[in-house]
Structure formats: structure tokens, C-alpha cells
């Protein structure tokens, strides 16, 4: 049995709690959270040992691994404390926000050979896994462009005061929604070498962006576009879609289905015909031992548990991979605040272009 403790009992934490607790190979030893009411109810009705201080938990309990589902600003210190005690660590996304801190933790986990994983669960969605296999096998030919989109209804009016509305704590559409899309892009086609034209706009929020748009550039000439908007009420819940174009066709996938268009059939994949092919989650998804909100949530936890058992540091979504996401998010932030927007040549004006408010302000000044 793998002995696990869970730190953080918010939305993701509660979901992890149910999944971990029902796993046949796991002994859930203790949980930790700062909300007394939740701990009180849990200990009374489930008997699980509860802590409000994670240091105390780590010092007192004999563990193999921890699952950390706190807001991102706590990740760095908590992950470090767990790695120092030679524990496998699963941490929620976004990982650390601070790229150098994330890289150090990735290095530490790597050196110690400890299982390390971050909760980018779209890597465990069967349709995206299928998409990756098609891309890696060259079925689409050479990839030259992609579009990654994430839309959903998180902030629909100008209220709210949780950590999600604070940039410092890992809130905002960039860290919450766009990071999933960035990670999927990395998983499918790799990390961009540069980003450009990044827009971080507010729709309803006061302190954080509600929509994110950016163009990704690759050394081999490939490009891609990313769009994320968490103020889109037309979606019932978060909806992620990726489309990839290659010289032999295109593939488009969301959580439910994958649509493949091939210009020419591929010898190694006789099951795919020339033209359209549609595959559904019902035929692609492997069953899980326990289902809560989607197979991927159970699959990612099981993957972590099996990695801890094997002492395998190379999980499907390592700290290193998650740090790359933080890095690209940082590149996008920098780009969004850069002072060099592409204003039409005949209207270029040095003063306007270098105004203090960055790209958007420059354009606004120009329009005035």
C-alpha cells in the first residue's frame, strides 16, 4: 500500500480526496487544510486524520507521497518540504509561477529519483492521447500550424474575491485556463521558441485578465495560436479544443471526439481512410476503477500512484514539463506588456508607440 497525504481541500482537493481514498493501492493517511469547518466535518464523518499545519503533518506521519492541491503561491515551499523528506509529489497546476523556483524543484525531484507530477489532466484525455500518437507517427505529415482554445464560464460578472481573482496567488485566465492549453500544446507539438502578439484583456475582473490570445513561434517555422476566455457563458463547463494542421491533413480534438482529415491514407494506419475520420471517447477511453468527473482525473492519479510504486520519476507530466508551462506563461506576460505593437507603418509615431501603458495603450493612443 502507498501511504499518501493530501494537502488542500478546495475544489480539486475534494475531487482528489474521493479518487485517492477509493484507490485500491492507497492508504490515505491524513489531510491538511486551513478551513476548520471542512476538517471538522471530514474527521467526524470519515475518520480521516486532519491537520491545519502541513509541516506538522509531514513530520508526524509516515508517508510515501503527498498530493498538493493548494493555491499556487504555496506550491514552492510545500513541494520542497515534501521532496526534502524523499516523498513522491503530485502538485496541482499551475506549478510554481516562478520559473527558477520550479526548475530547482524539478532538478531536485530528478536528482532524488522521486515520482513528480503536475495536474495537467488533459494529457490523460483519450482523444488528446490519440491525437499525440497520430502526430508522433507522422500521420499528418509535417505540422505547420495549430490552434489551441479553452473557453468556459468562470467569471461572468464583476464580483468575486477568491484566490482566482488575485494574480499573485495564481488566479486569472492565463494561469487557470490558458495554462491547460499551453500544456496541451507542449504535449502535442512541443514548447514554442517565442511568443508574440499576446493580449491579456479584462472583461469583468478588476485585477486579472479574463481573456488571453497569443501566437506561438517555433524555430522550424511552425506557428500556432492560442485563445482562452473564462468569461464565455455559452459553454456549460471548461471546454478545450486543439486543431493541428499538417502537410497531410488536419486533426481536431476536444474531450469527447477526435476528427481527422487525411489528404492521403497512411500505410501504417489502415484504419484511417482518406478524407474524414471521426473517433469518439466512448471507443477510445480506457475504463477506470472509480469515476467522479471524468476518466482523466482518475487516470492521472493512478498514473502517479503507479509511478510512486515503481519509484519512477518520469511521469507523463513532470515538474519539468509544468515549469515549461510557467516559462511560456511568463513569456506571454512579458510579451503582453512589451511596448512594440505592430502598428501600421504609415501611422507609426514614436511617442505613441513607446507610451507607458504597453501595446494596448499605444494602440488606444493611436486611435484617439
Amino acid at each position, binding site marked *: 500500500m502507498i501511504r499518501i497525504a493530501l494537502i488542500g481541500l*478546495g*475544489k480539486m482537493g*475534494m*475531487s482528489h*480526496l*474521493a*479518487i485517492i*481514498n*477509493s484507490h485500491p493501492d492507497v492508504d490515505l493517511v491524513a489531510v491538511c487544510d486551513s*478551513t*476548520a*469547518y*471542512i476538517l*471538522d*466535518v*471530514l474527521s*467526524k*464523518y*470519515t*475518520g*480521516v486524520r486532519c491537520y491545519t499545519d502541513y509541516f506538522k503533518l509531514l513530520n508526524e506521519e509516515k508517508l510515501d507521497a503527498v498530493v498538493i492541491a493548494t493555491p499556487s503561491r504555496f506550491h514552492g515551499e510545500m513541494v520542497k518540504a515534501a521532496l526534502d523528506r524523499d516523498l513522491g509529489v503530485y502538485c496541482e497546476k499551475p506549478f510554481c509561477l516562478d520559473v527558477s523556483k520550479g526548475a530547482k524543484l524539478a532538478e531536485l525531484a530528478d536528482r532524488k529519483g522521486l515520482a513528480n507530477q503536475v495536474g495537467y489532466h488533459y494529457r490523460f484525455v483519450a482523444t488528446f492521447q490519440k491525437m499525440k500518437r497520430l502526430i508522433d507517427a507522422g500521420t499528418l505529415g509535417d505540422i505547420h500550424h495549430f490552434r489551441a482554445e479553452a473557453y468556459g*464560464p*468562470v*467569471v461572468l460578472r464583476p*464580483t*468575486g*474575491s*477568491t484566490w*482566482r481573482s488575485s494574480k499573485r496567488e495564481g488566479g486569472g485566465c492565463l494561469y487557470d485556463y490558458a495554462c491547460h492549453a499551453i500544456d496541451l500544446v507542449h504535449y502535442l507539438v512541443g514548447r514554442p521558441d517565442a511568443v508574440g502578439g499576446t493580449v491579456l484583456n479584462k472583461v469583468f475582473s478588476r485585477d486579472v485578465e479574463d481573456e488571453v490570445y497569443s501566437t506561438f513561434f517555433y524555430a522550424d517555422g511552425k506557428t500556432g495560436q492560442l485563445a482562452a476566455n473564462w468569461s464565455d457563458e455559452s459553454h*456549460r*463547463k471548461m*471546454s478545450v*479544443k486543439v486543431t493541428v494542421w499538417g502537410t497531410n491533413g488536419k486533426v481536431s480534438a*476536444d*474531450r*469527447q*471526439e477526435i476528427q481527422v482529415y487525411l489528404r492521403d491514407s497512411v500505410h501504417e494506419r489502415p484504419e484511417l481512410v482518406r478524407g474524414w475520420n471521426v473517433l*469518439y*471517447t*466512448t*471507443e477510445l477511453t480506457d*475504463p*477506470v*476503477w*472509480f*469515476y*467522479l*468527473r471524468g*476518466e482523466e482525473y482518475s487516470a492521472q492519479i493512478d498514473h502517479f500512484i503507479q509511478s510512486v510504486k515503481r519509484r519512477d520519476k518520469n511521469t507523463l507530466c513532470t515538474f519539468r514539463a509544468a515549469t515549461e508551462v510557467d516559462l511560456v506563461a511568463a513569456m506571454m506576460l512579458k510579451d503582453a506588456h512589451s511596448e512594440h505593437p505592430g502598428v501600421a507603418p504609415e501611422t507609426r509615431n514614436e511617442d505613441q508607440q513607446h507610451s507607458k501603458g504597453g501595446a494596448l495603450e499605444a494602440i488606444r493612443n493611436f486611435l484617439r
Partner: protein
Amino acid sequence: MTHRCFPGCQDVQGNLTVERILFGDNQFFGVNHMSEEKARAQAMRFQTTRSIIDVLDSAYDEGINVFMCTTHERVGEICEHVRAHPEHYRGFQFYPCMPYAHKYVNAVTEHGALGALRRFLPDGGALGAILKGGMSVAKKDVEGVAQLLIDAEMKMFEGLRTPVIFLQNVVTDLLLGIGFNEAFRIFAQHVRNKYHAEPGYITMNLPRLLDVLEGLRIENPIVCANINKIGFRMCGGIEAYENVIATRTFQPIAMSVFASGAIPPKEALEYVCRQTKIRSIVFGASSRSNIRQTKQLIEKLSDTKPDAL
């Protein structure tokens, strides 16, 4: 209109019996487990409450008396319509499934767990006492909060017939996973005492839930789960499902029998109807012809007249 067996929905011993064919609501609210495009097309098709009512009327005319629905706010508008036409809907029943989880999830995202709770509960009362009490939460308080949440969800059904009230799978399975088993008893007790209804549980983890309900001595429970030929979202495996259906004492309701369209109708229903212990089948459809065909197929494959069930 087909002859209907008006409910009382009781058997000879006076126990409540769940109807054989239930009409579901996923198609009305943009839920399709196979395709987001189909889900969106359905959301557009059922933009107005009138368009939903028209399909419900078709189902009712075809002899389906039960609408098994989430406590989505638009269901409230359907309830109003049914209340306004008592004669027409004399035998119509709702099987509410609570809660409509996205409402809570979105509120938790926006306001935090306690903030969300505050929004869904009436002012003052139990929660106020709990929050003041800080650490010490008496057992009774949790029960009180749960009851208030159930009452808030049931408000839209006032004056309507709700002989079975379900706990939605996302909540059932969350509680099941966490091991908060007592919640199932709290739910059953309140639903029975206050609404004189039978508790039902929707789950994606049927064998595991049955063990827990048995442990709580909730006898012959009504449990709704995915039951389909390809084992789609049947946690524990299709064999374990077939085994518990054949051997355990409970009232199984099969949902997702077509696995969102992955299985052809006849093949799908043959699989479910072959398992004679399956009490009921819930399905959703958007057209009268589809409703009629599905109902006729179920009746034919069940090899029994619906009224005798």
C-alpha cells in the same frame, strides 16, 4: 393517447414502484457525452422552454409519465407550466435529480466553499450558527445544512408529484469516494420524511455504492447507473455490473443505455431488456417519432405489457 397506468405508482403491497420508462433531460441542456457539437446543436434546438415542453408533451402523449430531470433553473419554468395545467398533467410525475452541480461548482469557484454555501442557504438559521460556532460543528448542524440544501433544490417542485428524488452522480460519487456514507442516510431520511418520496442514487460506481448502501441498511434502494453493452462508464467493469444486477436486492434504473449514440438502438435495448432485474430505463430523445420508436422497442423487448410492470 395510450392508456396509462396512473400512478399511485404502488404495487399490491402499497410500496412505491418505479415506472418502467422514464424520460431524461440531458438533450435539453446541452449534455452529450460523445460530441460537443451535438450538445451545442441541442442547446440551440431547446433554447426556449416551450420547445422543451413540446417534446415533454410528446413523451407524455406516448404514455411516458415520468420526467427525470436535474434541478436546472429552467426545469423551474417547466414546473410552473405543469402547475398551471393540472388537468392536462394529471398523471405527470417528476423524478428530480439534485443538485444541478455546475451551479455549485461555479459558485465555489467564485465565492469559495463557505461563500457558496451562504448563497444557497436562507439567511440566518443553521449555517449562521455553524459559522459562529467555528471549530465545533455538531452532527445535527451538518444534517441541518444538508436538509436546507435539499429543500432549496426542491422548491421549484412545490405542489407537483415527486415520488422519487435522486442524488446526482457527481455528489453521490464524491461522497462515496470520500467515505462520507452517513450523507446517504441523511438524504434518504429527509426525502422520506419531508417529501414522502423514495430516495434514489445516481452513480458511475454501482458495485461500490451498493456495498455502502447495504452497510447503511438502506434496503432495496433505487439506484440509477450507466448500463450499456459496451461498458461505457461502468466502473468496476461490465461483468461486475451484470453480477450485482442479477444477484443483489435493489431497483436498478439503466441510463446511458445507448452510450450517447455509440450503440445502435435495438442492440442497446436488447442488452438492457435481457437483464430482467433491471427495473427501469431512462432515455432522452428530441422528436416524437424517436420517443415512440424507443418506447415501443423497450416494450417489445421487455416482452411484457408496460401496465403490468
